[in-house]
C-alpha cells in the first residue's frame, strides 16, 4: 500500500527546510549589503586597498541615547564622514562640512535634520515613503513637488524645529525670509506667536501640530497637503476660507513658501534638551562661588589645591576651604607642627610621621623641592594669618 502521509511529511519537511534556507539567505544578504560592496570597491578605486579593507561591514548605526533614536542611514550612506567623496553620487556622497561643525553626526544622528525613518534598513521605509511614517526624508523630490527653486529648501524646515527662537539661522535662507516677513507684516497684530500677539486670529504657536484632517482641501488646485494648503491660503486667504478677515498681503510664491515652512515647523519636537541650542544643562556657579573657586585655583595658595592638600586641610589665610576638614588648618601649621609632633614644620615636611607619612608617600608624593616650596608657602600663610589676626585685634601686634 502506498502511504500518502509519508509523501506529505516529506513535502512538509522540504518546505520547512526551504523556509529556513530562505530566511538564512535574507539574513546573510540584507538590503544594504550591495551598497556596502559598491562603496568598498569605490574606496579601493580612489584610496587604495588598505583603506578599503578598513571599511566597516554589517549594520551601521548611530545610537542617540537621550533621544531614544537609532539612525541606521550610514549602513548605505557610508561616505557621510569621509573626506574626498563630495563628487560621488548618492548614497556615498560626503556630507557638507559646515552643518556638521555644529551638529556632529555622533551626537545628532541623521533623522533630526533630514527626516526619514532611522530604524529602517530598506530604501522606501528608510526614506519614509511608507504609509503612516509622517516624517519623510526632506529631499529634492519633495522640494520639486512644491516647485521650490532651491532643491534643498525643504530641508530647512527641520532646522526650525530646534532653532525656532533664533532670528537668523545660518544656511537656512527660506526660514530666515519667512521669519522676517512674519515680523514685517505684523502677523502678531492678530495672531499669538510664542505667547505674544493679538486675539483676532488663532494662536499660531503650535500650528504645525494641526492634523491634516482639520484642513479643507476642496478649493485647492495644487497638491492637497498641509503645505499646499498653507501656500495657497497665504497667497489668497479669502479663496480658501471665505469668512476670513485675513488680508491678502500680496505674497509671491517664494514668500508664501518661506512662511509656510516656518508655520509648519511650529510644532512640538522630541529633541532632547541637551541638543537644543542655548540650553544650559549644568550647574552654573553663583558669582561668589566662582570667585571663591578662582581664589583657590589661582590665588597664592594654588599649590595646595593643585597637590590636593585642600581635600583635608583649610589654608584659611589663603582663602582655601576644605570641604571635609579632616586635618587642621594649615595657616597655623608653623606653630601647630611643633605642638603636635614636637618638631619644626620643615623637619616634619621632610620626614613626616603618622598619617602624613602615608599621605605624602602614597597619595601626594612631593619632591624635595616641592616640600621646600610647601614650607615657604606655609610660612607665608602663617605670617598672613598673624597679620589678619593683628588687624582684628585693633592693630596691636601680638
Amino acid at each position, binding site marked *: 500500500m502506498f502511504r500518502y502521509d509519508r509523501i506529505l511529511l*516529506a513535502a512538509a*519537511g*522540504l518546505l*520547512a*527546510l526551504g523556509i*529556513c*534556507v530562505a*530566511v*538564512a539567505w535574507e*539574513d546573510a544578504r540584507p538590503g544594504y549589503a550591495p551598497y556596502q560592496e559598491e562603496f568598498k570597491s569605490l*574606496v579601493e578605486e580612489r584610496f587604495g586597498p588598505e*583603506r578599503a579593507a*578598513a*571599511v566597516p561591514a*554589517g*549594520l551601521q*548605526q548611530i*545610537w542617540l*541615547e537621550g533621544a531614544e533614536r*537609532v539612525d*541606521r542611514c550610514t549602513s548605505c550612506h557610508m*561616505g557621510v*564622514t*569621509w*573626506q574626498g567623496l563630495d563628487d560621488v553620487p548618492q548614497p556615498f556622497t560626503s556630507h557638507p562640512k559646515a552643518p556638521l561643525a555644529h551638529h556632529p553626526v*555622533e551626537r545628532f544622528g541623521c533623522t533630526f535634520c533630514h527626516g526619514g525613518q532611522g530604524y529602517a534598513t530598506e530604501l522606501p521605509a528608510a526614506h519614509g515613503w511608507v504609509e503612516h511614517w509622517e516624517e519623510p526624508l526632506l529631499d529634492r523630490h519633495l522640494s520639486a513637488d512644491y516647485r521650490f527653486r532651491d532643491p534643498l529648501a525643504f530641508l530647512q524646515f527641520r532646522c526650525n524645529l530646534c532653532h525656532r527662537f533664533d532670528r537668523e539661522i545660518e544656511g537656512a535662507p527660506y526660514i530666515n525670509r519667512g521669519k522676517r516677513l512674519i515680523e514685517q507684516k505684523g502677523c502678531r497684530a492678530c495672531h499669538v506667536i510664542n505667547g505674544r500677539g493679538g486675539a483676532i486670529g488663532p494662536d499660531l504657536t503650535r500650528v504645525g501640530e494641526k492634523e491634516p484632517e482639520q484642513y479643507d482641501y476642496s478649493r485647492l488646485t495644487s497638491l492637497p497637503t498641509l503645505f499646499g494648503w498653507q501656500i495657497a491660503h497665504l497667497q489668497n486667504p479669502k479663496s480658501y476660507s471665505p469668512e476670513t478677515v485675513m488680508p491678502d498681503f500680496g505674497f509671491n510664491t517664494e514668500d508664501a513658501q518661506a512662511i509656510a515652512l516656518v508655520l509648519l515647523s511650529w510644532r512640538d519636537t522630541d529633541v532632547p534638551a541637551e541638543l537644543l541650542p542655548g540650553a544650559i544643562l549644568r550647574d552654573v556657579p553663583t558669582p561668589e562661588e566662582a570667585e571663591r573657586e578662582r581664589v583657590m585655583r589661582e590665588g597664592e595658595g594654588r599649590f595646595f589645591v593643585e597637590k*590636593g592638600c585642600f581635600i583635608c586641610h583649610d589654608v584659611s589665610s589663603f582663602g582655601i576651604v576644605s570641604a571635609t576638614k579632616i586635618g587642621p588648618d594649615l595657616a597655623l601649621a608653623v606653630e601647630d607642627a611643633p605642638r603636635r609632633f614636637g618638631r619644626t614644620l620643615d623637619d616634619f615636611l621632610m620626614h613626616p610621621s603618622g598619617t602624613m607619612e602615608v599621605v605624602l608617600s*602614597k*597619595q601626594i*608624593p612631593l*619632591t*624635595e623641592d616641592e616640600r621646600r616650596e610647601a614650607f615657604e608657602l606655609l610660612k607665608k600663610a602663617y605670617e598672613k594669618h598673624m597679620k589678619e589676626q593683628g588687624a582684628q585685634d585693633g592693630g596691636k601686634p601680638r
Partner: protein
Amino acid sequence: MSEGPERPPTPPSSPGEPIGRRALIARLGVGLAGAAMAAPILMSGRSLVPNALYEAPRKVKVGPPDHFADGPTFLKDQRVFVFREGKVFHCLSAVCTHLGCTVQLMRKERTQEVEFHCPCHGSRYRGDGTNYAGPAPRPLDYLRLELAPDDAQLVVDLARTEDKGWRFTL
C-alpha cells in the same frame, strides 16, 4: 547459468563505484532530514548574536594624530593616556586594575620617567603599565589604536586590549 527472477541485492557502494538507486534515495533522505534539523538549530544560534546593540560605541575618535604632542596625553572622557613618539603611538587605560579609580600621571624626580599612581589605594605602575606597588593585581591595559578610514582621526578601541608593549605605527 540462468538469470534468476529476483533482482540482485543492491551492492554495497564503495568509493569510485556508482551507487544504486535505493541507496541514493536513502542517503538523500537522511541528508535532508539532517539538514532540516540542523537548519533551525543554526538559525536559533544565529538569533543569539545581535546585529546591533543599543549602547555607546566602544570605538571612539579622539582627533587627528598630529594634534597629539610627543609624550603622554590624558583624555578625560575616555580615561586613557595616549602616548606619542614621533610616528609611533600607544594607548594605556587610566583605569586602575584594582578598583577602577583613575590613575594619575607622575614623573620620577631625577629621571623624569613616567609613572602612574592611583590616588585611592596607592597602587603604582611604571610607565609601561607594569604594576609594582599597592594592591593592583595586574598591569594597566593596553588599548588598541587605529586610524579611522574616513577622516584619518586616531581611534581608540575601548573594547579591545592588546598585549603589553603594543604599538601603533602611522
